């Protein structure tokens, strides 16, 4: 199959696809070509990726055995563990917090009797009653407003958006009331609300159900944003978000709900503002979050075999950025690659790029490369959908180019 590759700015993409070994995806085997879409939108053929790596070649790069299984990479903790899926981890965290504090309540569409469209609240309504796990009508603007009003009096509601995209309807409430009330009331009211829901590009769900809205919410003052990516950090971040007195938006991903991992039996709460070191390294800092973490780890395997030693950090905290961890990493590696699923224009990567440039400019040996989703509505067709998000081969190519 001859892939037509058009060079130059403004060229339309050619439809090639990538072969990758991902046990969860069931795409048929395709011809192996690679097409690199650079973050300025121009195309270049990846067919002849040259090997001028120069002094960056590290003969000691060994694939970390922890990273073999794509399901999880957690720091090993002693003690008993149990295995569960990500949505079960979220539910466990939620249930533990509801048990601990009677002010915690859940509201959202189909969270009660139906158990949640992604089963995150399954069984909770039977246990805690209809008022505490509240099935709302389809009125995002008002039930988010209701949650905020309830939070003003001291309740700790968790508002579930069935899909993050639906929360656009509640944007006024989230921006004006949720984020700003603590400030405009001079500190009198605090809003300990958690707004959570799945977002991201799924499996051919169509444009309106495949949105990445982190970029829209990131400039609202007064809120915190976190993105979970593994069952371990999902439970920890859920608990931390519920206990936090600030409004927190917890971004989950539609395709990550069935991740399996062994998590500790004992109770743990993670920090909302900290990033997670997934794989230490010394050649390049790769910053990522949510589902792209897995694409990065897959690319990391390839990179390690090629002799690179990437340091992978799951930033987790989208607002505020954990510039401490990131800064230490930049100081070590001097190269930064950001891989995200958010939109190119005004996305989290764009903000992170600006932030790192502002604070750590002196430590950088090369400009920051940011790989994000294309600025298009997510198409329905499978192949097109794949090209909307960053694929592992693009990550590999970007690292190679960066580390030349």
């Amino acid at each position, binding site marked *: 199959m001859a892939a037509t590759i058009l060079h130059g700015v403004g060229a339309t993409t050619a439809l090639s696809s990538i072969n990758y070994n991902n046990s969860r995806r069931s795409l048929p085997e395709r011809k192996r070509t690679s097409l690199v879409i650079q973050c300025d939108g121009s195309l270049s053929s990846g067919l002849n990726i040259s090997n001028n790596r120069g002094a960056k070649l590290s003969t000691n790069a060994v694939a970390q055995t922890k990273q073999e299984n794509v399901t999880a990479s957690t720091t090993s903790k002693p003690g008993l563990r149990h295995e569960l899926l990500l949505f079960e981890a979220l539910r466990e965290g939620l249930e533990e917090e509801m048990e601990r504090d009677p002010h915690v*309540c859940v509201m959202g569409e189909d969270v009660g009797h139906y158990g949640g469209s992604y089963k995150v609240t399954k069984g909770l309504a039977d246990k805690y009653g209809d*008022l*505490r796990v509240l099935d*709302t*009508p389809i*009125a995002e*603007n*008002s*039930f*988010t*407003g*209701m949650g*905020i*009003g*309830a*939070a*003003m*009096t001291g*309740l700790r509601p968790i508002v579930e958006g069935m899909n993050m995209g639906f929360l656009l309807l509640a944007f*006024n*409430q989230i921006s*004006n*009331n949720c984020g700003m*009330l*603590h*400030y*405009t*009331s*001079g*500190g*009198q*009211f*605090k809003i*300990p609300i958690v707004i959570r829901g799945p977002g991201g590009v799924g499996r051919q769900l169509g444009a309106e159900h495949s949105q990445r809205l982190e970029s829209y919410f990131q400039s609202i*003052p*007064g809120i*915190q944003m976190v993105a979970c990516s593994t069952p371990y950090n999902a439970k920890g971040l859920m608990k*931390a978000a519920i*206990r*936090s*007195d*600030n409004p927190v938006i917890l971004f989950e991903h539609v395709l990550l709900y069935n991740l399996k991992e062994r998590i500790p039996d004992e109770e743990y709460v993670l*920090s*909302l*503002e*900290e990033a997670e070191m997934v794989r230490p390294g010394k050649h390049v800092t790769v910053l990522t979050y949510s589902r792209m973490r897995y694409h990065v780890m897959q690319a990391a395997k390839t990179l390690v075999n090629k002799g690179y030693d990437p340091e992978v950090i799951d930033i987790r*905290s989208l*607002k*505020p*950025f*954990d*510039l*401490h*961890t990131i*800064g*230490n990493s930049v*100081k070590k590696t001097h190269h930064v690659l950001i891989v995200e699923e958010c939109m190119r224009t005004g996305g989290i990567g764009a903000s992170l790029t600006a932030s790192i440039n*502002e*604070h*750590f400019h002196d430590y950088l040996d090369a400009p920051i490369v940011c790989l994000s989703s294309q600025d298009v509505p997510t198409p329905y067709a499978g192949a097109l959908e794949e090209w909307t998000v960053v694929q592992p081969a693009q990550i590999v190519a970007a690292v190679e180019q960066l580390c030349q």
Partner: protein
Amino acid sequence: MAQLTHRASALHKSIPAVLFAARGLATASTSPITVETSLPFTGHKIDPPSRSVETSSQELLTFFRDMALMRRMEIAADSLYKAKLIRGFCHLYDGQEAVCVGMEAAINKKDCIITAYRDHCIFLGRGGTLLEAFAELMGRKSGCSKGKGGSMHFYKKEGGFYGGHGIVGAQVPLGCGLAFAQKYSKDESVTFAMYGDGAANQGQLFEALNMAALWDLPAILVCENNHYGMGTAEWRAAKSPAYYKRGDYVPGLKVDGMDVLAVKQACKFAKEHALKNGPIILEMDTYRYHGHSMSDPGSTYRTRDEISGVRQERDPIERVRKLILTHDIATEKELKDTEKEVRKEVDEAIAQAKESPMPDPSELFTNVYVKGLGTESFGADRKELRTVLP
């Protein structure tokens, strides 16, 4: 009932007490006087309460003083705005005082009130002081929101006043959330979510009403119908200006909002209803003398005759004054003295507010987040803007 007189200023005037003592106990008594409201109530899917309201001479005097204080405060705010000491938006409540004073008479501090941006007087009614109000309007540190909120963001947590919101209609879902929390904690109190005739056309109102009715939340939606949504008359914005009927399955009551006793009766009735049966809508037929805000002269969309007509026939303070004089509770001179006293209080508060300091520049970054989880990394609420790696 007498909360305003206690909290209004540090200088506690005792002249009214002296007057009462001179006249004997009969005048300042709490013995009931029954007054008929000016108009009957109109009900929608509910039997309206009776027109006869029980009050007392003490209550009437309190009403007079409170409303006079609010009127004076709003007029003083008008001059301060023109003197450029208050900037931005300033929405004045004069003409509508009866709504907030009558409401306060029917409820306690555990009940919650939430309203839109015409909130200065409701703040006073809930226990706010004149100093806090003027300081906030002038952007000083001793304002109720530390100078960071402004005219549209007055809040008083201890008084059960939840604001103070700039976006039209957004406070009604918040109000239903307050009612939800009250139902959740089973504390037998209600929420009054106030909005205007302009906001009555917002979709989120109906969404919130649906949910409140679905779960029997103790929410009372109060439409302060001053007949103009900024510059648009209600007949030009609403197909059905019978706002009390808009709830459809939710009962409603239309009240003469310029009659403080009618408002008191309606709110008492609504509270009893909401605690047992869920939401109810109250439409207060009221009027504002000023324009929508200080930047609106208020005369381009209505005639000066209309404004002065309402002022002559329906002014809430005049109505109470007539009641007091007819029932021989106080003399004309005593009421004039009360007004002078109130004026002095307001002037003193303004003088004190003018002296109070501006907020510190470091206050720009405080209260964006609440600290509390214990683990802090580099955060946005720091005063340093650059990170220094260790």
